[in-house]
């Protein structure tokens, strides 16, 4: 049995994915060259509540921008739904989402970064520590998805 790989061409959207990535990179670039800060969402979100240092306002402003962004997109493209339809077929799925959030919150504090801090900023500044983090969380996420398929736990 060889390694089998199949690409889901129907879902493949390279151009919007690339353009969206460019915007994410632009935001991270603005934040580091203007404010001297790392655009790490888990870190900003955590420090927003916990930091006692003065000058915490930029964190609240950044998070506010994230929260408002779907409304801006909706205003720019009123005819396109901003979020996908979702269907919760079993109440257990809410529990899975809450537990997943708990693991992500705990894990990203422990590892001091998530997809943005380690994945975008860390890799962009060629940090070996971030490369290790990204390899591990991507690997762990891929194994989790594969195990769920094996165990028959669809969605």
């Amino acid at each position: 049995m060889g390694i089998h790989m199949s690409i889901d061409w129907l879902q493949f959207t390279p151009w919007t994915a690339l353009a969206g990535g460019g915007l994410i990179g632009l935001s991270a670039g603005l934040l580091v060259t203007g404010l001297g800060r790392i655009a790490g969402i888990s870190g900003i979100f955590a420090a927003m509540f916990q930091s006692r240092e003065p000058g915490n306002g930029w964190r609240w402003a950044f998070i506010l921008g994230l929260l408002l962004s779907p409304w801006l997109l909706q205003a720019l493209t009123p005819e396109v739904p901003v979020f996908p339809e979702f269907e919760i077929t079993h109440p257990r799925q809410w529990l899975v989402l809450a537990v997943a959030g708990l693991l992500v919150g705990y894990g990203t504090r422990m590892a001091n970064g998530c997809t943005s801090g380690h994945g975008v900023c860390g890799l962009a500044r060629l940090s070996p520590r971030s490369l290790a983090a990204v390899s591990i969380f991507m690997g762990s996420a891929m194994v989790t998805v594969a195990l769920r398929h094996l165990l028959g736990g669809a969605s």
Partner: protein
Amino acid sequence: MTILLALLAGLIFGLGLLLSGMSNPAKVLGFLDIGGAWDPSLAFTMAGAISVAMPCFFWARHHSRTWLGLPLELPARTGVDRKLVLGSVLFGIGWGLSGICPGPALVGLGGGFLPAGVFALGLYFGIVLYSRINEPVQRPDA
């Protein structure tokens, strides 16, 4: 100015997550599903983000002040320790269970996307739990 720039950066970041598909859990799970019907789109998002951010971080490394005159604080840590490894494993499990990471959780919360909202609640308590366990609050006497 600092606040305005941070707000603008947050808006642009959020738009990037929405446009790329990172805010769609099914899209993210398709990207993580390398053994099934794989959707490689989000690899282009990573590539796009890193290639735009890289020259900015290069500039930052060679300056001690930002163009707003603020001190540049780049992380200095380089070592890989047990906390980085274990924390990343836990994060990956949560990401793989949901298809949601912290940025899309907050964008979804703001836009009223219910699955992201429930996830964000867990995210908040995960952060609080970590600091309770690892940095116990010093309660004042009496």
